[in-house]
């Protein structure tokens, strides 16, 4: 106890709270900072490509018209099963619908579902971890036991249980994936809060009489959130895969909707005569996941350097 007081006392004299504004623009010369940023990306062409891919997918998700003017649900029956060409980049399906348009419009459904899933897991898991780490004692025990259990059930089975309870649909699949991922976020958030909670600047804030919500909101949360954000980028990739698995199994939006997983399961019936119907949507998923994983790794190494 006395040791704690002593530490708090020294902390009062020293400005130990890291200043985010200062670490953001370290050098006084903005040109040098720009040059350093350019050099950083020039040494990482894979990262640049990943960012470009993610940008393309995000634009496709929010403004599909930019990439394809074709209607994803209306086909020309005479033009069915055309192999990829300049007219139809990804070929056409059994009803003569343009597959590229379907993949582009599918990004909207699949990406929104993924975004919802990750946000759901991030918010609920984050709050659980924050409470567990900040309150401690039996609350911590109860929450973390719960988290351990959730981690021991295969996530897909958990998602299937939620789908069974809620029913089919893009939003429901997204929630199912989100529920299954809560535990991971809670665990990382708690670990970070525990690390920050004992830091000198937090004790200093307590020492000068800051209220608990000020300590939490101004000191603990901002300093513990970045690893959780990194996890969110990483989970984005796995959630795209999980969402597409569930829609592949047929639990997503009903037929005409071009969800990525649904496109692959549709193409499955024509595997022998129209390879592009399964191959190309799958490549779209793989490219997106690979890109988000690459970005997550870059962010992770940045966060670790702090």
């Amino acid at each position: 106890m006395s040791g704690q007081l002593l530490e708090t006392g020294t902390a009062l004299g020293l400005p130990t709270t890291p200043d985010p504004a200062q670490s953001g623009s370290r050098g006084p010369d903005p040109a040098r900072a720009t040059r350093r940023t350019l050099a950083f990306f020039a040494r990482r062409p894979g990262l640049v490509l990943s960012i470009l891919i993610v940008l393309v997918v995000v634009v496709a998700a929010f403004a599909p018209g930019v990439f394809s003017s074709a209607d994803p649900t209306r086909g020309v029956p005479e033009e069915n099963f055309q192999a990829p060409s300049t007219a139809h980049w990804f070929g056409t399906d059994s009803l003569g619908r343009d597959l590229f348009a379907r993949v582009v419009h599918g990004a909207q459904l699949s990406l929104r579902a993924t975004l919802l899933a990750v946000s759901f897991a991030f918010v609920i898991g984050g709050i659980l971890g924050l409470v567990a780490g900040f309150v401690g004692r039996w609350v911590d025990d109860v929450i973390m036991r719960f988290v351990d259990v959730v981690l021991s059930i295969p996530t897909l089975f958990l998602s299937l249980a939620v789908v069974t309870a809620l029913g089919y649909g893009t939003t429901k699949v997204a929630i199912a994936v989100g529920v299954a991922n809560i535990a991971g976020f809670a665990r990382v958030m708690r670990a970070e809060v525990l690390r920050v909670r004992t830091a000198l600047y937090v004790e200093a804030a307590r020492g000068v009489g800051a209220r608990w919500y000020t300590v939490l909101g101004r000191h603990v949360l901002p300093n513990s959130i970045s690893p959780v954000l990194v996890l969110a980028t990483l989970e984005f990739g796995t959630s795209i895969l999980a969402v597409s698995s569930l829609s592949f199994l047929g639990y997503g939006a009903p037929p005409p909707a071009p969800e990525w997983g649904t496109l692959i399961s549709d193409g499955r019936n024509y595997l022998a005569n129209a390879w592009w119907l399964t191959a190309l949507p799958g490549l779209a998923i793989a490219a997106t996941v690979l890109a988000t994983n690459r970005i997550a790794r870059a962010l992770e190494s940045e966060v670790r350097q702090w």
Partner: protein
Amino acid sequence: MMRRYIAKRIAQAVGVLWAAYTLSFFILVLLPGDPVTAMAGQGMDSAPVDPARLEALRAEYGFDQPAPLQYLEYLGRALTGDLGDSVATGRPVTQLITEALPQTLLLTASALTLALLFGGALAMAATYSERRWVRQFLLSLPPLGVSVPTFWIGLMLVQFFSFRNAWFPAFGNDGVKGLVLPAVTLAVPTGAQIALVLAKSLSTTLDEPYIATAKAKGAGRVHVHLRHALRNAALPALTVAGLLVGALMANAVVIETVFSRNGLGRVTQAAVAAQDIPVVQGVVVYGALVFVVVNLLVDLVYPLLDPRIVLAPTRPQAVAA
């Protein structure tokens, strides 16, 4: 010491099973959506059902009672090994699942073996090679493996090995030949993750002073790599392999659908489609059971490889108190 370690691990495993049962119960029974209406309709899209029949069903399954009472009743039965009857087929859930489980376990075990072999070999080759480009090429494969949808890998393999060249059957459960494609498919993401972990722990182990000592005493590179480095570096990979078994089994369910194999996948698909709650709950509990048993085994093998594990956990606590 050893006996206490084992007892503690077994108690933890039982606790996890109980909690998995509880969690799945609350997800399935307490979430919005009336299970009884779904059961009576046997599916998502069906005509409204006679209210008297609903009441009868509610009483039969105990859904007319308050949730805690239902839970206690169901838990009591689960403790005696009775997970209820399937709503769709009327057969006991345990029977349905134990019939389908061996096929799925066979697939999971074959995939895990392949994943350990190839993931391990990849990590070994990557850390052994002295050429930078070989190393970088090999290390770029695992991130690729975890980014590709597993079911898509399966379909691509079918496309190439069954339709273009009729080397392996595309569907069904016949013999070893039918097992090859699904097992390879499943092994890809798991092997990739094992390779990632093993390559990382191998490269840190190779920097340890005792490796330098072994080399200084004249041991060959292969000998150092296999005998000295791998033995220590394998431990994290083993832990990860245990943790991956759950995901592997869940993926097996999807892959069984891709290859139209009999197994837990078909049971699960049918149960979810019919909102057959007891069966879905059974699948969740059995999934947790397999995961818990495998990790229990890993925990029990661990001290044989590294005696410090048994000795360590009790010490720091004693010091801290």
